[in-house]
């Protein structure tokens, strides 16, 4: 009676009997269908969001067909547009797949923004002050230092959590401010560009530290490839290794994990280090691939957008590649929508927000509907 698999088969049969129409569908389809729907639902969410946005655009007096056409062309119209989408997706994929590890461990790391800045600062310092290395050493070094600093910044919150049981949501948010304002201090003070007009920015990193671009004349740099590799590695880590299994177990139930002999604290720290490291790497890549120097503000909120990216993909790193590209396309297309369709940015932000809202709502509905009809309750 307590065997869940028996229950499932029984209900399955009941259903076939109760609804003869369903019998036409093979059982395999029935089994795959929910999964398929789980994969379709993000798309459905996006379609719904775009539909609501369409009504908004009409209400505001804009031609939605034109707005969406422009948006589509802005994101995927030509090679350059596509490359720009991938450039914007790069930090989102890295941050998102890092966050997936933390979220799988039930560690709510809201501090990817700060970890991104930490990585960017580390990469900039290396890129400015180490001038004599060839690029095949320089680039790994820059990325490594960025990753390490991001990981350390993340582990700081992780340590506070395991040592003092400090809520990581609070500490990571606070550490964001420290990282961002600290960066502001560095670029207006010790790291300010000694040449050129006293602008609050650092000097440019050396040529050897700049990431090669592999698709001229576009700006697409190898950072995107690195992001893909990292996402795949994190996927393997989460789902195909014992470490990942332990992390997931801690996430589902730390007490059980401890009972099973898993060192909970160590895995919490590890999850924070991985997610911080990925965000730090994203920061380093942004400096070494795009901006080549550090400004007071170098992220338009990648760290927070990364949360939505991870949630949209249900914390699955391979899905995060897709959702990262989607968010990159939204961002990129939205800019062109402002420029060419003259849709004001507030409306554009509303559209972006609607997409996130719908995605989360659909996700919740899915969880809800999966959990509610428990056999025991029937």
């Amino acid at each position, binding site marked *: 009676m307590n065997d869940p698999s028996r229950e499932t088969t029984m209900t399955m049969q009941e259903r076939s009997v109760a609804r003869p129409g369903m019998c036409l569908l093979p059982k395999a389809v029935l089994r795959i269908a929910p999964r398929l729907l789980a994969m379709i639902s993000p798309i*459905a969410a996006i379609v719904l969001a775009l539909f609501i946005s369409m009504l908004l655009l009409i209400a505001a007096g804009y031609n939605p067909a034109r707005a969406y056409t422009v948006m589509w062309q802005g994101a995927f119209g030509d090679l*350059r547009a596509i490359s720009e989408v991938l450039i914007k997706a790069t930090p989102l994929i890295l941050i998102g797949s890092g966050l997936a590890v933390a979220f799988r461990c039930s560690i709510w790391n809201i501090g990817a923004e700060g970890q991104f800045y930490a990585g960017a600062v580390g990469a900039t310092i290396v890129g400015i002050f180490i001038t004599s290395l060839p690029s095949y050493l320089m680039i790994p070094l820059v990325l490594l230092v960025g990753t390490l600093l991001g990981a350390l910044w993340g582990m700081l919150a992780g340590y506070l959590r395991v040592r003092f049981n400090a809520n990581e949501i609070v500490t990571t948010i606070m550490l964001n401010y420290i990282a961002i304002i600290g960066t502001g201090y560095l670029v207006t003070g010790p790291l300010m560009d000694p040449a050129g007009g006293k602008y609050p920015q650092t000097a440019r990193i050396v040529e050897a530290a700049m990431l090669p671009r592999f698709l001229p004349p576009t700006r697409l740099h190898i950072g995107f490839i690195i992001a893909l590799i990292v996402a795949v590695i994190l996927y393997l880590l989460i789902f195909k290794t014992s470490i990942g299994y332990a992390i997931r177990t801690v996430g589902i139930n730390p007490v059980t994990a401890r009972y099973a002999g898993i060192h909970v604290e160590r895995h919490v720290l590890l999850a924070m280090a991985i997610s911080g490291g990925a965000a730090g790497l994203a920061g380093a890549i942004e400096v070494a691939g795009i901006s080549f120097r550090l400004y007071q503000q170098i992220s338009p909120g990648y760290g927070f957008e990364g949360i939505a990216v991870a949630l949209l993909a249900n914390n699955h790193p391979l899905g995060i590649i897709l959702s990262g590209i989607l968010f990159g396309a939204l961002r990129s297309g939205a800019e062109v929508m402002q420029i060419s369709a003259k849709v004001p*940015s507030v409306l554009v932000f509303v559209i972006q927000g609607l997409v996130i809202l719908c995605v989360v709502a659909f996700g919740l509905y899915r969880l809800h509907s999966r959990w509610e009809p428990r056999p025991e309750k029937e």
Partner: protein
Amino acid sequence: MKQRLVWYVLAVLLITALLAACAGQPAAPTPTPTPAPQEKPFKVGLLLPGSANDQGWNQIAYDAFKRIEKELGAEMSYVELEQSPASFEKAFRDFASQGYQMILGHGFEFQDPALAVAKDYPNTFFFISSSRIFAGNVIGLNTDSSQPFYLMGVIAAKMGKGAGLVGGMEIPPISEAFTGFINGAHSVDPNFPVSVTYIGNFTDAAAAKEAALSMIAQGADFIIPNADVAGLGVYQAVAESGPQIATFGVFGDFTDKAPQNVIGNYFADYGQGIVNMAKAVKEGTFKPTGNVEFGLKNKDVMWLTFNDKAARPVPEDVRKLVEEVTAKIAAGEIKTLAPAK
């Protein structure tokens, strides 16, 4: 059971919606290419690092572009980019590739991206706010506050015993203005005492007030703020310290904050400067030979007024001197930014 049915219905609905959307796309009224216009439209693009209606930095440029649209019949478009260096270069390219003749990046941080794009679009002018860059068609626009502050320095040294300057943060626009003040004061009296303080932010009016009060206590009778909102603290301090203390309104009319003490106001209208640039670009008279520095020679961009109702209005002979000095500065005979002692 029910759940699954709901999903099927939903799926069918969505697929139909998708199909409809796909089918609808080509039928949608795509923008028909406009028939060759008699005159090439004047198109201006604006890149903002923040919100267009922030009542501050970004709005100055936005309002200016709205004026360009209205007064010059230009086609104007803008984009808010947040602080996203990754977006800057693309936005420049998006504008330039659509034939915009003038693009303004509103902040020094747009320098690098503009340089990267500009060489591909030699017929477009890329302007950069608060920048001194000049590279072909990339032109920095800057307002030189050291010039009006030089005039204030002249007035202070003519009328007072000592001056105090309260700055927000020690950044070039502020420290250069103060350099101008010191140069101006010392041009009248090389030993005129000027003390300078930076409160470290642009918001703490209480700190600015404290700084002003301590300067007054040390004998300064001419206190000038350059600290944005925090500067209000200086006007309070001055108003409370009696009519013998003088001050200047900086970047606006502050007469009502201390009617007895404000002997004049300094106005800067960077937006007017932007409009002037657009006018020159449109008429084809803009032939850049260097970066653009708005100063006292641009009378509609930067000017001083005097308050005759102040307790110690600026005397006639000093006003005359100010006029002469203004002419010399405008002619480039006086370098207000020379390194101050």
